[in-house]
């Protein structure tokens, strides 16, 4: 039975590690949220501040995801199809959000758009408030979720090659027609996968938004900020309930990712 011991050893160690780090804590938060029944949870998630935080998070996602999708596709096209000197620099710029702490993103935005920042005087003179209000939170969320669509689209574009695009152009299609009728249908699943990742990241962003929002209860408090606020005010029921809402959204994200991955595999198999 040496074979089964060899197999079981790594399996036992690996699964125990996953259970202790991931499985048990996640199961525990569901258990502790619902241990006193549904009523207190429902009560907690229907608090006005919780509802406001939820819709604010949705609003940020609704602004940021379309922006980063359009510009992400544009960046991917430039990286894969463009022929200019700064391509490597563009790739580096795209990776920057992965290397930079969310807190530092928030700070950097304050240094440009804050009251004492580079554009502070100009923005104040024109009555525009960026920091401690929605525009700043949009910028922070867009910064941290910038790379996903482009990163998922670049390899698909590379794989696709330019043959079909060349053919379309030779047959007289304009650049826009070629993109819409040839390129976009071929890259769509890569783009959608990137959109799912962008949505998850935008919904959960905490550090950068924490700095630029000012965390004003019922005003600039997103759902993740609400979780922190409840937790620090010893309202564990409220914190757990809001955390479970976000966890359920994360599970929905995972499910979509898996369905999409299967879909892409089928597409490439055909």
């Amino acid at each position: 039975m040496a074979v089964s011991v060899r197999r079981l050893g790594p399996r036992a160690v690996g699964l125990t590690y996953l259970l202790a780090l991931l499985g048990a804590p996640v199961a525990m938060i569901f258990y502790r949220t619902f241990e006193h029944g549904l009523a207190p949870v429902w009560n907690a998630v229907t608090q006005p501040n919780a509802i406001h935080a939820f819709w604010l998070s949705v609003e940020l996602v609704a602004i940021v995801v379309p922006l980063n999708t359009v510009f992400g596709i544009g960046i991917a096209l430039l990286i894969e199809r463009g022929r200019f000197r700064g391509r490597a620099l563009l790739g580096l710029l795209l990776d920057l959000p992965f290397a930079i702490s969310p807190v530092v993103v928030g700070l950097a935005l304050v240094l440009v758009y804050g009251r004492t920042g580079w554009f502070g005087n100009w923005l104040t003179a024109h009555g525009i408030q960026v920091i401690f209000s929605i525009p700043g939170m949009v910028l922070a969320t867009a910064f941290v979720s910038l790379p996903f669509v482009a990163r998922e689209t670049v390899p698909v574009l590379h794989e696709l090659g330019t043959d079909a695009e060349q053919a379309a152009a030779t047959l007289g299609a304009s650049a826009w027609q070629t993109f819409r009728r040839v390129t976009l249908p071929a890259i769509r699943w890569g783009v959608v996968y990137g959109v799912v990742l962008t949505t998850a990241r935008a919904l959960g962003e905490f550090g950068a938004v924490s700095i630029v929002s000012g965390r004003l209860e019922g005003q600039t408090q997103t759902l993740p900020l609400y979780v922190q606020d409840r937790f620090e005010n010893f309202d564990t029921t409220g914190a757990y309930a809001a955390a479970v809402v976000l966890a359920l959204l994360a599970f929905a994200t995972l499910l979509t990712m898996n369905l999409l991955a299967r879909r892409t595999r089928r597409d490439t198999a055909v």
Partner: protein
Amino acid sequence: MSPGPVSQALERHSPRRRGLPAGGRSATALGNGLLAGYLSVLVLLPVSALLASAASGGSAAFWQSVSGPEAVAALKLTLVASAIVVVVNALFGTLIAWVLVRDEFPGKRVVNALIDLPFALPTVVAGVVLLALYGKGGPAGIDITFTRAAVGLALLFVTLPFVVRSVQPVLIELDRSMEEAAGSLGAGSWTVFRRIVLPNLTPAILSGAALSFARALGEFGSVVLISGNLPFKTEVGSVYIFNQVENDNVAAAASVSVVLLACALVVLGAMTWLSRRGSAHGG
């Protein structure tokens, strides 16, 4: 990622490049302009402002903010915790990838799907989740709140997928005939793993490790609730920066940010260089 010679040649003779209708060309220019504007407003200007702010007081002021005892303690904790986390990730990430590729057991697909949960879960929720089990009054009977172990645990949680997801595809593609040959020549399974499998996995392990190191250096949301942010004890670099910003000490925050960012970029740069060298050797 550069296009192959064929597509490059095609590109050169592309009618799109030569005889594009005037409207199409100006539309492309407009698109590029918008893109440049977006990236400037979002990334370039803020990062430039960060560097400018760190440099604003000259090198003496920069050095003073970076070498203050609290800043040094925070940076040291961040670097040491990230280093430990990377080693644990490299070991367990490789092991988990191995189990997910080479082993068969009921529920494997669910486990495989759950590996990405730390990427999908908001970081602050990750902190709350860990506290629900390992915090005060939790059923595990231990309380890790406000300890350095809590910092390590939070970092392990959020960086779990990196090594697993970079090793897994390499392991799937790995040709097993080499292992079978070694086995039939009398090598034990550990020898086969160490001499044949591991060398093939090393680039993937390193790249996953580098990504998790960069992530751990800047991690904030999962650490902030669980660690208590006690200066000189559990305060990591990102939390120190946050506190400096809250206290209107922006230049000091920017200086420490630049140090953190430089560390992350050095590690990621080294990874890119290593992987390029590796692929050059492979042909």
